[in-house]
């Protein structure tokens, strides 16, 4: 377990702007991620959340703005992206330097419950297993920042639940800073310390989730937070005659011309 001082944030993004031709995807985005914090980034499709993650992964150059990142980062993509010609353990050790790479791979695979498939070919794995290998490949690098790009989107509902539990457990043990890009509001609420909604190239909504782990959908305030995030995403779950919500459960709507306030209302456990 890491014992980083809580002083400087792990990730610091200021005024990040990214254009593709005439299309501005990110518009002066600001974000800090504290060391060991689990942040979920939500957004409609095309909102730029994947572009932002790719920037943090170093796959997309910073052309305007400032981004400070830890050097040790790892990514889990939506598709496992395993090399089909490498056995499971060799996929985990890909690009790994230092002694006993195989031993470290075995340990990482044990953590995701796949140490019995060390010598399997990726083509023989199920979708969930392949994604667990991808997770092990990221973990084995002991990243300071773990970037998850909709890693569970392509999995079936049951497998997704197990993956949520696995990721929550691994995060509790290793405590990397995490940025999870997702379109699944429930996933964000179950896993993250903070849920952000990206809109018009900026973070427009911020919601702190303080409930202790492990969480379940039955936790207090779940449905209200869910409705808040969904409405920030443009989905009105309550319909026109919505149920009145206590004011302090409403997610912080960041004004258009301001930076996101870091004093988002915190949901009180009753």
């Amino acid at each position: 377990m890491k014992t980083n001082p809580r002083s400087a944030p792990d990730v610091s993004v200021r005024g990040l702007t990214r254009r593709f031709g005439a299309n501005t995807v990110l518009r002066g985005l600001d974000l800090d991620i504290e060391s060991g914090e689990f942040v979920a980034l939500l957004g409609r499709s095309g909102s730029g959340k994947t572009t932002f993650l790719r920037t943090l992964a170093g796959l997309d150059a910073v052309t305007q703005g400032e981004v400070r990142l830890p050097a040790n980062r790892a990514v889990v993509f939506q598709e496992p992206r395993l090399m089909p010609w490498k056995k499971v353990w060799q996929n985990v050790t890909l690009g790994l330097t230092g002694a006993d790479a195989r031993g470290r791979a075995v340990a990482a695979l044990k953590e995701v419950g796949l140490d019995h498939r060390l010598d399997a070919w990726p083509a023989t794995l199920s979708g969930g297993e392949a994604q667990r290998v991808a997770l092990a490949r990221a973990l084995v690098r002991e990243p300071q920042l773990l970037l998850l790009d909709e890693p569970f989107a392509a999995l079936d509902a049951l497998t997704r639940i197990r993956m949520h539990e696995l990721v929550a457990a691994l995060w509790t043990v290793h405590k990397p800073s995490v940025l999870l890009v997702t379109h699944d509001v429930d996933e964000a609420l179950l896993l993250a310390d903070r849920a952000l909604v990206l809109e018009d190239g900026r973070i427009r909504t911020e919601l702190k989730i303080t409930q202790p782990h492990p969480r379940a959908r039955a936790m207090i305030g779940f449905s209200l937070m869910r409705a808040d995030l969904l409405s920030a995403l443009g989905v009105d779950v309550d319909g026109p005659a919505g149920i009145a919500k206590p004011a302090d459960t409403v997610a912080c709507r960041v004004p258009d011309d301001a930076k996101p306030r870091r004093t988002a209302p915190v949901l009180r456990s009753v």
Partner: protein
Amino acid sequence: MTDALIPNQGNMLRKFAHSAGRAVTPILILVAWQIASATGLVPERTLASPLHVIGTFWTLIADGELQDNLLVSLRRAMEGLAIGVSFGTVFALISGLSRSGEAAVDAPLQILRAIPFLALVPLFILWFGIGETPKIALVALGTIYPVYLNLYAGIRGIDKKLLEAGACFGLNHWQILRHIVLPGALPSFLVGLRYAVGISWLSLVVAEQINASSGIGYLIMSARDFMRTDIIVVGLIVYGLLGLLTDILIRTLEHRALAWRPSILKG
């Protein structure tokens, strides 16, 4: 239903019956051929009888004539193949791995490819004389293209997402080449190699029929002068067997090198 799922004795018998069934027609043709020869319907100078061909086969082996000429042919094919595959691989790497390399290498190769390489025989004889060089050069020239074209397509067809993942996990250019590009392009390379082997025999047939004093092609051509159709048929069978054997060899190689492929995993 269960027969199809559980391999039992009945199923194996059925498989055997199936292969035996496939052999029926070729055997009938051989029998008909033998009868036609024996009754004089097909004269010896047109086509020797199957039994005569088998007899000649043994005689040629006993004399050592077949083995000697086979070795000469094999050597030409392997040397030409080695040169052609090497050049094809190097060209494919140059043009597959860089845009400027593609500009430099691809256009001239595509232009040259438009000329049927066997048409270069007269020029090769003028350049290289009538020794071993023109024969090996012809094989080499013919085998460059299938290797080049397939490997080049294989390199360019690598999944961009895998390359991106490789870069993400800190691989440098050399490691990306070694761990992602080359293994990913290997299936295409092996397809090219299989074509190349086929073409090497084809070019050998042509090369050995021109001014050769040894080799299977020479055996066939000199048999023609004496109207020995039995020896000609033996030569044709050897060519056929060579093609078949090398194909099996490359399939085995594919099976081992590409053990990770879903099609092989299922099989």
